[in-house]
């Protein structure tokens, strides 16, 4: 299975709400996905219902947390890219199949990413996430 990553439908809807200055919040949180086999990211995934049978980790250092850094960058046109970095430190033995990047209210997932293969985390292992998303007009 390829690594797949996509903006979700609910993530785009949240982005539109932000542009309309309605009740919405920006990219703020991140959580690791738990599944024994690799998952496939789909646009229809939501915060409550991630891809396939994946679920959010709720402990062991892989649970929902504030993203370490969120910034802007330029790829094609000035400021067209959002970048984010985060480090998870596992406090137990857990499988990580992917991640969800969520809003500040922790009710919408903007981006779903499913890794190439399941990462078998052990106690004190670290997982460094390096992400960027570009809005491309051409």
């Amino acid at each position: 299975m390829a690594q797949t990553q996509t903006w979700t439908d609910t993530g785009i809807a949240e982005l539109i709400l932000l542009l309309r200055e309605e009740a919405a919040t920006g990219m703020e949180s991140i959580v690791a996905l738990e599944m024994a086999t690799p998952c496939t990211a789909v646009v229809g995934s939501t915060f409550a219902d991630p891809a396939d049978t994946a679920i959010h980790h709720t402990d062991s250092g892989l649970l929902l947390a504030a993203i370490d850094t969120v910034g802007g960058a330029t790829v094609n046109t000035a400021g067209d890219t959002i970048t984010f970095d985060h480090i998870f430190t596992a406090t137990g033995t857990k499988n990580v199949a992917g991640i969800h990047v969520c809003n500040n209210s922790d009710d919408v997932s903007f981006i779903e990413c499913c890794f190439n293969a399941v990462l078998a985390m052990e106690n004190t292992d670290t997982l460094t996430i390096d992400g960027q998303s570009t809005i491309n007009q051409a």
Partner: protein
Amino acid sequence: MPEATIVRQVMKTIVTGEHREGVCENCKTLLIKEFYMDGERKRVRLVCPKCGGMGRLIAKTYSVQPPTPPRCLRVKCLFQFFKDTLFCALLSGYHSKRVAYAEQNRHKEILERYRTGEPSPETMWQAIHANIKLKCPICRKYNKDPLLFRR
């Protein structure tokens, strides 16, 4: 060009995950989080407070991007799309098997390319070779290409 279609890749997302041990490779000290500036981008990394070292890399995932849809209905465009799709499938298969292999052998000595994912195959021919090599235990052990008998 009446048959031309405009293709928009509106949101392109690239994510990589780097799985490392949480203790320093050199002195086995527990690593600490450090924020730093990479140009104008504020970033974060884990470093050893004693020697500045890092944790041993176990596996790094690779973001495979889907092929660009064909821009026209000519045979040339469709054939290019077919080639891109085939390459994408081979590349995806290689990186999936590579990451799984690196995870399964986290405590063993394996070729560094299977942990980092670099160099990644850039052509279909390279992807075919890389897939065959990854499946062949003798080729992996002696770091030899099974078709060319060289590295």
